[in-house]
């Protein structure tokens, strides 16, 4: 078992009160699993990722336990987490393009980064070169400034940097969103390659583009308004989702081969609730066509079939 989170709850502190961005998240990522994390903007994807690695104010830890390879992570303690960051748990941030220090040559920045973690930079150089080859970057980039690289190249450089110490868990936050389709494909396939070569044990890939997840993820976790809605193997989420939100989300995606004149797709009417003082119970219930009186209670995130978790009272009826 690689990562297990138990009722992880994180709020944002604001002057108006708490924004309940992540509520009672319980899930497991197995060894070697690439878990996709999908949902609309503002549903808590990034909050979940950040709370696993760097929980900074205004984020506020409410409750929960996170274990990585059997060891408990002190996610609520910024200082104590320093021992785990980069070594055991690492992130490729959103907009990784701007993640590198613009005033340092990339090679120098890399060695400074390694030295700051007490790793001898010279000893890592051969491995660094091997990995640059793997992502099709020339060794010359180490002598360049970040500005000399294209967006896709910077993205790949940050991928190599983040995984250099073979972390147990890698979080990739929207790393393909700003790329062209061809680089998008290359970067996604590199993520799989990194897992296959065991540079990282488990991975959380955050994106709003579900079709990318279909290509690379082993399982997909769908979030809605701060709550976990459904988690299942990729094929199941795409082909036979159970949660009404997942169903509507999947059916609203345009694909090559679908034309407006032939098959008109529909969006999801309404919009997500504000997480400052959200409605009680299931937060999707106002947009849900199946909502009934039971939905004023929060549905548990229950395993209805092996590996298939869902939080919906309507679904529970058929699994009673």
């Amino acid at each position, binding site marked *: 078992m690689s990562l297990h989170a138990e009722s992880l709850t994180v709020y944002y502190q604001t002057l108006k009160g708490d924004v309940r961005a992540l509520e009672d998240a319980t899930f497991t990522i197995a060894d070697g699993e690439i878990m996709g994390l999908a949902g*609309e*903007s503002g549903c808590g994807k990034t909050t979940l990722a950040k709370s696993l690695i760097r929980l900074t104010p205004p984020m506020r830890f409410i409750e929960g336990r996170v274990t990585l390879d059997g060891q408990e992570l002190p996610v609520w303690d910024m200082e104590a987490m320093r021992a785990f960051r980069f070594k055991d748990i690492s992130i490729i941030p959103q907009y990784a393009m701007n993640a590198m220090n613009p005033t340092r040559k990339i090679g120098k920045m890399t060695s400074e980064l390694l030295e700051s973690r007490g790793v001898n930079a010279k000893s890592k150089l051969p491995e660094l070169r091997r990995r640059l080859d793997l992502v*099709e970057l*020339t060794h010359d980039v180490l002598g360049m400034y970040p500005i000399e690289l294209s*967006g*896709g190249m910077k993205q790949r450089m940050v991928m190599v940097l983040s995984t250099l110490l073979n972390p147990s868990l890698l979080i990739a936050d929207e790393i393909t969103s700003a790329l*062209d*389709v*061809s*680089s*998008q*494909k*290359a970067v*996604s*396939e590199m993520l799989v390659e990194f897992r296959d070569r065991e540079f990282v044990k488990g991975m959380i890939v955050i994106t*709003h*583009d*579900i*079709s*990318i997840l*279909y*290509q690379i993820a082993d399982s997909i976790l769908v979030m809605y308004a701060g709550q976990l809605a459904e988690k299942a193997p990729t094929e199941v989420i*795409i082909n036979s989702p159970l949660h009404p939100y997942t169903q*509507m*989300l*999947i059916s*609203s*995606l*345009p*694909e*090559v*081969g*679908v*034309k*407006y004149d032939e098959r*008109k*797709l*529909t*969006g*999801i009417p309404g*919009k997500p609730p504000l997480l400052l003082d959200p409605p009680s119970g299931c937060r999707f219930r106002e947009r849900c066509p199946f909502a009934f009186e039971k939905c004023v209670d929060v549905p548990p995130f229950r395993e209805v079939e092996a590996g298939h978790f869902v939080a919906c009272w309507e679904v529970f009826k058929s699994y009673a």
Partner: protein
Amino acid sequence: MLKLDGVSKIYQTGTFGGKDLYAVNDVSFDVEEGEVVSLIGESGSGKSTIGKMILRLISISSGEINFDGVDVSTLEGSELKAYYREVQGVFQDPFSSYNPVFKADRVFRQIREEFFPGMGDRAWSEKVDRSLRDVGLNPDQVLNKYPHQLSGGQLQRFLIARALLLDIDFLVADEVISMLDASTRIDVLNLLADLKSRGLSILFITHDLSLGYYVSDRAVILYSGYIVEMGSVEKIYDNPLHPYTKMLMASVPRLDKKWEEVEMELKAKKSGRAEGCVYYERCPIGEDACARRHPDLTQVEEGHLVACPYYESA
């Protein structure tokens, strides 16, 4: 209706502007009335530059853009204003299209001051209401709000409503949905398709091929400022011929099948292109002749043009 004829955009680069950079190179295509044409390309392909040239936001270096038979680059003063009554643009980022200090409806007021100074309050507010309903918004819910109080999809539809106030015939939609969430995306796409069925012509600029397929009649594929392939969407998507188009089609993430094993060329395999084909460096074919001359766009079947003489061997 709109016709581009040999349009190029040249930027001077280098310390003293000594080098020419062709952002758009000899591009010709047209958009018929009530037609949606997708302009598809990666970043740096010149697709937005073309949109901006049509909207007269940047000048044309050579060639001509004709709208209903009139060369748009010659328009000035009242003629230009008349042009903007018919042609409008909506851009990628709905959040930065507004001034956050003012309420969002200010964009409507500006249209009124500029184009309808004589119109009475009552008639104007009816017009605004109608155009908001046309884009599927409820005027009571969205008027008199600040931009941060509206969602991205609402703001984007607001901008389309603003364009519709002018009874336009032609809309340049530059990546209008790439910033929106999947669930709101499809609403804006459906809106564009509805407008099309009412006779509006749209130039739909996108890098997402599945979105292009959903709404458009024809597609133009750009690479590095050149048109490499164009034709009806069905022909291009079912039977892509140019090696670049093939590579693009193979990289689109799809929900019905997994990525095939396609050779991805991220770094140039070969170098040395001064006059040759733009795609030579990344192309799997790359004959010697390709390095010498950029191939012309030639018709391979009814309504399907390709700029690659070796497409069959790809």
